[in-house]
Each structure stands twice: as structure tokens, then as C-alpha cells.
């Protein structure tokens, strides 16, 4: 396949960026999207140009490192991570636009790499449980009802990639935060911090400069892990409950 790529190039956080156009040839349909970018970078390096910087790590769809907006969609046209997107989703001769996540809370570091440490600070503010350290407790010491375990697992699937923020017209981190809050709040192990967790994590989310939720639903459509939009509904309920009890 021969493709035309329009890629966001930005030297560093302070520099002005712009879309640059590149041609790539010899792309196989079973290449992953990142392998296609590797091919582009090889040719850029050989011609003495600066390769395109982009985040990636496991390339298995489980780490949440990759972060590209492809043709206006976070992680591209398939409901998966960019690393699990394959070139068979595109046709010979296509022009593909590749941009970084766009949100003031995710500043561009270089090219397609953004700083997502705002997510880490949200986790630090309440995404933990109080547990005694030492040897692992007996697995059945705390009974977890099956529906709660299923619900927690559905939300624990979040890999923190930030596609929800990238897709949201308000740059809101509600789906990420709600996945983390719900995952722990529904479990008996998370019960001691049930109130403070949601208040602190929402507080941190707000102070990072993410926008608010207008229920546009773009986040849940973009989420490669299928975190449901109702995750936000549930966190809203947890928030009001905690605000009433003031933590």
C-alpha cells in the first residue's frame, strides 16, 4: 500500500507545531499502525530527518501508552488501541491524519507525545485502598458478591490511555476518573475510602484543568476497553452521596 500521512510535528512543548505531509510506500495490510510509523521513521532517519516521536510500549493493547488521534478518532477507526489497529483498516492511496491527544491538561511534549501525568496525580489522590502490608491475605477472607466483582472488573479494565479525554469535546477526564472510582468503590476492600476517594479524585481532576461532562458520549465510543458511559452516572451518584456525608 502507498499512503499519504499528514502528521503533527512539534519540536518541543514550547514550539509552534504544524501538520507535515509524508509519503510511505510498501505498507503491508497485516502491519500494525505503529509498524507503519516505524517504517516512516526508518526512511526519515535514513534521509537524515528527525523521526516522528510517538508513545508506545507493550504493543499488545494492555499498557495504555499509545495515543494517536487518527483521522479525528482516538486510536483510529477500530475500537482498540493504536498498537492493535492494523493497516487492513485502510486502503491503498488513503490520506491519514495523525494528531496527538488534544487537551490543555495533556500538553504536547514532542510531535505526537503528550504528558499524561495528570492521570497519575488523579490516581495518587485516591486510587488506592488501605491494606495491611506483608504476606498476602487469604483470598476468601473478604467475600465479594459476584455482581460487585463483575462490576469492579469491568471498570478495572481501564488502561489509562486517555482516549476518553482526547475524544471528549470538553477535554474531560470523567470516564477515566469514574472507571477508577467505581472499580474500588464497589468492592469491600475499597469501602473505607469510599467517600473521600470520589471527592479527592474529582477534586484533583478539576484542578488539573480537565473540562466537565456534557454527556456527549464520545468518550465511551472511543474507549478501547469499553468502559460504559454509565460509569460516569455511577460516579455522579457516588459524588453526591459523599458530598452529603462530607467524605
Amino acid at each position, binding site marked *: 500500500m502507498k499512503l499519504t500521512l499528514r502528521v503533527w510535528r512539534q519540536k518541543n512543548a514550547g514550539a509552534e507545531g504544524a501538520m507535515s505531509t509524508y509519503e510511505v510506500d510498501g505498507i503491508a495490510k497485516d502491519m500494525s499502525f505503529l509498524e507503519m510509523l516505524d517504517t516512516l521513521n526508518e526512511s526519515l532517519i535514513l534521509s537524515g530527518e528527525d523521526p516522528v516521536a510517538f508513545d508506545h510500549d507493550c504493543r499488545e493493547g494492555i499498557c495504555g501508552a499509545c495515543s494517536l488521534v487518527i483521522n479525528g478518532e482516538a486510536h483510529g477507526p477500530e475500537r482498540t488501541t493504536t498498537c492493535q489497529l492494523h493497516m487492513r483498516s485502510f486502503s491503498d492511496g488513503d490520506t491519514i491524519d495523525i494528531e496527538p491527544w488534544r487537551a490543555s491538561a495533556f500538553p504536547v511534549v514532542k510531535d505526537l507525545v503528550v504528558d499524561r501525568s495528570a492521570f497519575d496525580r488523579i490516581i495518587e489522590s485516591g486510587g488506592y485502598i488501605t491494606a495491611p502490608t506483608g504476606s498476602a491475605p487469604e483470598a476468601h477472607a473478604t467475600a465479594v458478591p459476584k455482581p460487585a466483582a463483575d462490576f469492579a472488573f469491568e471498570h478495572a479494565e481501564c488502561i489509562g490511555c486517555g482516549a476518553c479525554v482526547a475524544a471528549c469535546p470538553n477535554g474531560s477526564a470523567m470516564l477515566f476518573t469514574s472507571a477508577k472510582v467505581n472499580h474500588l468503590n464497589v468492592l469491600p476492600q475499597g469501602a473505607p475510602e469510599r467517600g473521600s476517594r470520589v471527592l479527592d479524585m474529582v477534586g484533583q481532576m478539576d484542578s488539573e484543568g480537565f473540562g466537565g461532562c456534557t454527556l456527549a458520549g464520545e468518550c465511551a465510543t472511543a474507549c478501547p476497553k469499553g468502559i460504559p458511559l454509565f460509569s460516569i452516572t455511577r460516579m*455522579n451518584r457516588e459524588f453526591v452521596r459523599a458530598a452529603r456525608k462530607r467524605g
Partner: protein
Amino acid sequence: MAGAVLTVEPMAALDTRTDRRPSFVGLLWGSTVGKKTAMAVSGIVMLLYLVVHMLGNLKIFFGAADFDAYAAWLRTIGEPFLHHEWFLWIARVVLVAAVVTHAVAAFQLSRRDIAARPVKYAHKRRRASYATRTMRWGGVILGLFIVWHILDLTTLTVNPHAAAGHPYANVVATFSTWYGDVIYIAAMLALGLHIRHGFWSAAQTLGAGSAARDRVLRTTADALALLLTAGFVSVPVAVMTGLVS
């Protein structure tokens, strides 16, 4: 260990929480989630009022005597416990509080949302439904409409007939002008769109939504939007067609 200073990084997680949290209202108004709660509650107050208002408006189809008598009765609700028109004034105060809460929260949240996404994507793509995308400007249109509507049919300042105590004749006079019909019908279409996304959103904001309940909530939102718009628009249409004159 004399002289040895052990420096330990302060860890927020281990700090004793000595600071008191703000009040319930302070916690709500101070966060994006809570501000949406205020918008949801004030929106539902206005929505309930609109249902009653629309049903009352339909009395116009029973003629001038019935409609004017209904308008006069509104001023006597709660008597003798409440003084003449007191109920009306209480309702007005509640409604103004709801409108102001709703608008201020919307303004503050919108400014924040726009600031959170300063750079647009180069690859443009249509996002979200029409009703969702028109919430902000639709809200502004409705706010301006409310001002005109009160000047027209409550204070009668801009009403072409302006006869106090004769609401039927005033309504007919307004809807006998082309601009009265255009403003009113445009605003009611905006209202329908606003309720379509607003009612469902309010349910999510108040934590009432779920996958199992979603169809019921979406259908209710559509039904409310459709019935309110149709009910309100039926009055100018009736005047235009001569059914009410």
C-alpha cells in the same frame, strides 16, 4: 542518632486529615460534577413548571372566558392562607432562582470546557448529536426568549394589545404578528432540543441512569420534548389558522 536528620517526603496519603471539607453546597458548587447536579435540579424544576404551563396554555382552546378565568384563578391559589397573588410570586422567585442557577453554572462550566480543549483537531469530524451540540446556544436563545416572553405577556410592555386582565386577547394579539409567531415557534423548537438532551443528561448527572433503564429514560426525554414543543406551538398555530381568535 544525634545530628542525623532523617528527611521524609511528606505523603498526602498518610497525612492526618485535619482540614474540614466545605459544606454540602460548597462541595457541590466547587466541583464540575456538583455544578452539573445544580444544573440538573434547576433544570428539572423548570421542566416541571413547563409541563404545568403548557397544560394551562391549552385552556385557550375552550374560549376567552375559560382562559381568562383560569388566569385569574392562578392569582387566588392558596387563599385564604396565602394572600392574593402570593403563590404566583413564590413560583416566580423559585423560577428565577432556577434560571439563574442553571445559567450561571452553564456559563462557568462552558468557559472551563472551552479552555480544556484549546487546540482543535485538524481532521474535522461531526461529534455528538444535534441536540447535544446545540445545548449552549439553545440555552442562550431560550434565555433571550424568556425575557421577551415576560415583556410580552406578563408585563405587557411590548404586547400589541396590552390589556391587563385579558390574557386571551393579549395572546391572540401577539400571535397575530408575524414576528411573534417566528420568535415563539423558533424558541419552542430550541426548547424541544434542549429538553431532549437535557432530561436524559439530568438523569445521568443525578445518578439515575443505567444500561437497563436507558431506553425508558431516552423515550421519556423524547416524549417530553415532543409533547411540550407540540403543546406550546399549537397555540400560535391555532391563532394563525383562525381556530383561536
